[in-house]
C-alpha cells in the first residue's frame, strides 16, 4: 500500500464516516420522533408495587458493583495484583480526596458514605451509556427495558435525603444537641435584650433586641439553606443526567452512528463530574456541620 499523507488519511476517515452515515440511514430507518418520557415508566408490578425501568437499572448497577467487589476481594493478598490492585488504587485516590477536605480524623468516618455516593452515581451514569439502555423496548408501547437510574428524579432525591440525614446526624453528634440547634434557633440575644429592657436599660435593651432579631433571622435563613440543599442536589443530578440522555437520543435521531460519538465522551466526563460534585458537596456540608461556630459574646 502506497504511503498516504495526513490529508489523505483525514479524507479517507471522512469518506468512511459518510459511508457509515448513508448505510446507517438505509439499513436502520428511524421512527418519526424518539420516545421521550420524563417520568420512569413501569414495566410490571408485584403486589401492586410498580417495578420501573430505572429501578431495574439501579439493581443492575448494584449487581455489577457487588460482582466487582466480590471478584476483587475473593483472594486478597498483601501485595495486590490484577483487579484487586486496580480497585485498591481507586479507593486510595478517593480516600485521599476525602482526607484532604475533611482532615485525617473525620475523613475516615465520612469516607464510607461519600465513597458509596460517588461510586453509585458514577456507576449509574456510566452503565447508562452502554448499548442496551433505552434501546430495547418491551411490551406494546415499546417501553425501554433499562434506563439510567440517575434520570429518575426519585433516585437523586433519595440520595439527597441520605446526604441530608447524614449531615444533620454528624452535626448533632459532634457538637451536641444544644450547640448544634443554636445555629438554627438563635433567640438567646432577643430574650437577653427584653430582659434588659425590663430592668430599665432602655438603650442597651433596644440595641440588644435589634441584634437578637438579626440573629434569629440568620437562624431562619440557615434552616432554609439546609432544606434548599436537598432540592438543589436533586435537581442538579437529575437535570444533568436527563439532559445528557436527551442529547444522545436527539443526536442518534438526527445523524445515526457518527454524530453521537463525541457526545458519549462528553457524557462520560459529565457523569464523573456530577458524581464528584454530589460526593464532594456532601463532604463539604459535613465539614461545615462538624466545624464549631466561633463564639462572640
Amino acid at each position, binding site marked *: 500500500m502506497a504511503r498516504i499523507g495526513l490529508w489523505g488519511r483525514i479524507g479517507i476517515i471522512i469518506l468512511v464516516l459518510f459511508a457509515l452515515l448513508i448505510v446507517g440511514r438505509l439499513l436502520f430507518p428511524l421512527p418519526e420522533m424518539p420516545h421521550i418520557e420524563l417520568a420512569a415508566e413501569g414495566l410490571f408490578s408485584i403486589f401492586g408495587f410498580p417495578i420501573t425501568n430505572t429501578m431495574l437499572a439501579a439493581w443492575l448497577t448494584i449487581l455489577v458493583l457487588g460482582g466487582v467487589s466480590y471478584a476483587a476481594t475473593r483472594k486478597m493478598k498483601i501485595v495486590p495484583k490484577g483487579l484487586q490492585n486496580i480497585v485498591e488504587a481507586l479507593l486510595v485516590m478517593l480516600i485521599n480526596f476525602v482526607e484532604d477536605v475533611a482532615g485525617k480524623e473525620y475523613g475516615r468516618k465520612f469516607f464510607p458514605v461519600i465513597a458509596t455516593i460517588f461510586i453509585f452515581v458514577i456507576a449509574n451514569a456510566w452503565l447508562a451509556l452502554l448499548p442496551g439502555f433505552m434501546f430495547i423496548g418491551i411490551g406494546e408501547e415499546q417501553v425501554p427495558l433499562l434506563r439510567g437510574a440517575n434520570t429518575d428524579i426519585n433516585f437523586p432525591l433519595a440520595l439527597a435525603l441520605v446526604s441530608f440525614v447524614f449531615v444533620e446526624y454528624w452535626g448533632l453528634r459532634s457538637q451536641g444537641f444544644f450547640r448544634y440547634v443554636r445555629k438554627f434557633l438563635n433567640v438567646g440575644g432577643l430574650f437577653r435584650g427584653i430582659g434588659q429592657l425590663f430592668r430599665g436599660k432602655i438603650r442597651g435593651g433596644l440595641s440588644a433586641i435589634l441584634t437578637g432579631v438579626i440573629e434569629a433571622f440568620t437562624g431562619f435563613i440557615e434552616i432554609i439553606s439546609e432544606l434548599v440543599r436537598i432540592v438543589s442536589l436533586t435537581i442538579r443530578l437529575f*437535570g444533568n443526567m*436527563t*439532559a445528557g440522555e436527551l442529547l444522545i437520543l436527539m443526536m442518534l435521531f438526527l445523524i445515526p452512528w457518527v454524530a453521537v460519538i463525541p457526545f458519549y465522551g462528553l457524557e462520560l466526563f459529565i457523569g464523573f463530574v456530577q458524581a464528584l460534585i454530589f460526593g*464532594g458537596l456532601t463532604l463539604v456540608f459535613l465539614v461545615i456541620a462538624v466545624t464549631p461556630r466561633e463564639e462572640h459574646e
Partner: protein
Amino acid sequence: MDVETMKVLAAALAIGLGAQGPAIAIGILASGAMQALGRNPEARGPIMTNMILAIAFAEAIAIYALIVAIILIFVA
C-alpha cells in the same frame, strides 16, 4: 396565540434567557482561571480541577432552565 404556540415560545424563552447567566458566569470563571494560570503555571492541576467544579455549579443553573423547558414541551 393559542396554547400550543405559547408553550413552545415559553420553552424557548426559558432556556434562551436561562442560559445567559451561566454563560456569563462560565466566561468569568474561565477568565479568572486563565489569569491564575498565567501568573502561576505550576498550579495547573488544582486550578483545572477547581475551575471544572465551579463551572459545573454555574452550569447547573442552565440545567434548571433546561428542565423547565423540557417539562414545558414534553409534559405540560
